[in-house]
């Protein structure tokens, strides 16, 4: 086949893949009458921000956006720090339980976290009386579960990046008089940056997308809901406010999309590195 034909096919496929997103933004910008019509048009001549206004005022999406951001960012920061330390321990140190721990990590990665909703619900219920912030109806409970679920994968992924840093570098650093911890933070940490980026993207998405745990843990504190839950509030039988739902979906997708575009190159490199390792 000619390269031009292949490229044309590629562009058509890309358009199909991107179409739902186009439709989301378009619907969010259409006036309500154009949204609820039996023959929807794939364009609009009268774009308006009404749907966004409704999403932000009627359902206070801003509040939920902040909640989601807080949860996701705290999870990313903690998970990066903890998994970097653990990955370093598992790659650059030799100790007796090392292999056992690695196999355990692989196994917990496969545990269907959704199945743990029931015991975690009861745990968060009892935690509420001791440390409210980490109990039911508080964002801390979400931070805890997402941290736990992103750690095994993050550690596993970072391992490859830490292992790829040559041992000679550490010997050189030691000769120069650097302590182990200085080496850890000033040499190793920057060198595994692509791995950290890839890991943080996956941890962020995991926490940002969560619907199940937010639904289970945030039961009666409307002010502590996250975006996926808030979006569901709009969906009512027979009287969906599609414009506002699509505006909400747009608001929810933009942060992740920005994150992705910013780290795009490093993400590809990171995935390749993780797979190679």
């Amino acid at each position: 086949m000619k390269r031009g034909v292949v490229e044309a096919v590629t562009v058509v496929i890309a358009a199909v893949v991107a179409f739902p997103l186009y439709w989301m933004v378009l619907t969010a910008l259409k006036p309500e009458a154009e949204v609820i019509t039996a023959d929807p048009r794939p364009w609009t001549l009268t774009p308006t921000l009404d749907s966004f206004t409704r999403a932000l005022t009627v359902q206070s999406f801003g509040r939920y956006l902040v909640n989601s951001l807080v949860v996701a960012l705290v999870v990313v920061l903690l998970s990066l720090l903890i998994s970097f330390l653990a990955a370093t321990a598992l790659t650059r140190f030799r100790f007796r339980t090392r292999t056992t721990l690695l196999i355990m990590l692989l196994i917990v990665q496969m545990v269907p976290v959704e199945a743990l909703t029931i015991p975690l619900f009861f745990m968060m219920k009892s935690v509420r009386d001791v440390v409210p912030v980490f109990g039911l109806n508080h964002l801390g409970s979400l931070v805890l579960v997402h941290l736990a679920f992103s750690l095994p994968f993050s550690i596993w992924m970072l391992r490859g990046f830490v292992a790829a840093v040559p041992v000679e570098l550490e010997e050189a650093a030691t000769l120069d008089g650097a302590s182990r911890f200085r080496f850890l933070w000033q040499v190793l940490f920057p060198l595994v940056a692509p791995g950290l980026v890839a890991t943080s993207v996956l941890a962020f998405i995991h926490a940002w997308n969560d619907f199940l745990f937010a639904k289970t843990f945030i039961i009666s504190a409307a002010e502590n809901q996250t975006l996926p839950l808030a979006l569901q509030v709009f969906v009512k039988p027979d009287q969906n406010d599609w414009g506002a739902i699509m505006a909400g979906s747009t608001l929810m997708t933009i942060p992740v999309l920005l994150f992705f575009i910013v780290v795009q190159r490093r993400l590809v490199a990171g995935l390749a590195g993780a797979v190679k390792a």
Partner: protein
Amino acid sequence: MNARKGDGRIAYALLAPALLVLVGLMGYPIYQLVLISLFDYGQEQVSGGAPLIFLGVGNYATLLSDAKFWSVLGQTLGFAAVCVVGTLLVGATLAVLATRVRTWARTVLFLAALGAWATPAVAGSTIWLFLFDANFGFVNELLGTTGFSWTFDKWTAFGLVAAQVIWCSFPFVMVTLYAGIKAIPGEVIEAAALDGASTFRTARSVILPLLRPILIVVTIQSIIWDFKVFTQIYVMTNGGGIAGRNLVLNVYAYQQAFAASEYGLGAAIGVVMTALLLVVTLGYLRALRKSGEEL
């Protein structure tokens, strides 16, 4: 790092935060899950109004003799299989396509895929629902089938959810495989061409074996993800479809526990799911060992 005295102690110090979180929030809940599954654990037990009754394998016996459980299990496996095969086919085809085009076309394709990948599951589910809406959906307008409800019939509903799942999960496969193909040294392919191998032969005998480890990783990841789909089913079929026709194990366990207050039964479903996925994990470990990966 070179082995030094006191290595073990430093290693454990570095591991401590991770171990604390994992034991507390994964290890202990797994133990609790098994424990709860052995009891008659309902609303009255939760509120302390009735004593706990130890059932042993009672909940499991109830499940295994329940036709509903078997049909949900079958549906879960079938649904996951369709999603995995679809995701891999689309992802692999587009990865190969991406190697055949100039940078600008590849960038366009990757940006579109990144968009699908970045869309949160709840948002993606609602967008697809709206696109396929009976009265206001663009797809019905396009097909001239206005008024047709895609979510009413069991199979079109499953098909719609599967399409959405494939849409948001093929990018991972595509990007990973693309990176893998790019990592194959050009000389290897040139050597094959010099030896007179056809494109197909090169793909089958040279590229595919080199990609095997990556293919195994993405396949297993897809199996694990698609077997556990919750959000899409829950949002798109409104909690498992009319009369629960579109249930998968995850949603079924959730409904049993939090809607019917049958926590013991829900936990038993969770244990069964975990056991099934552990079997897959063992297969994964064996595959990794075969492909020569060192732990």
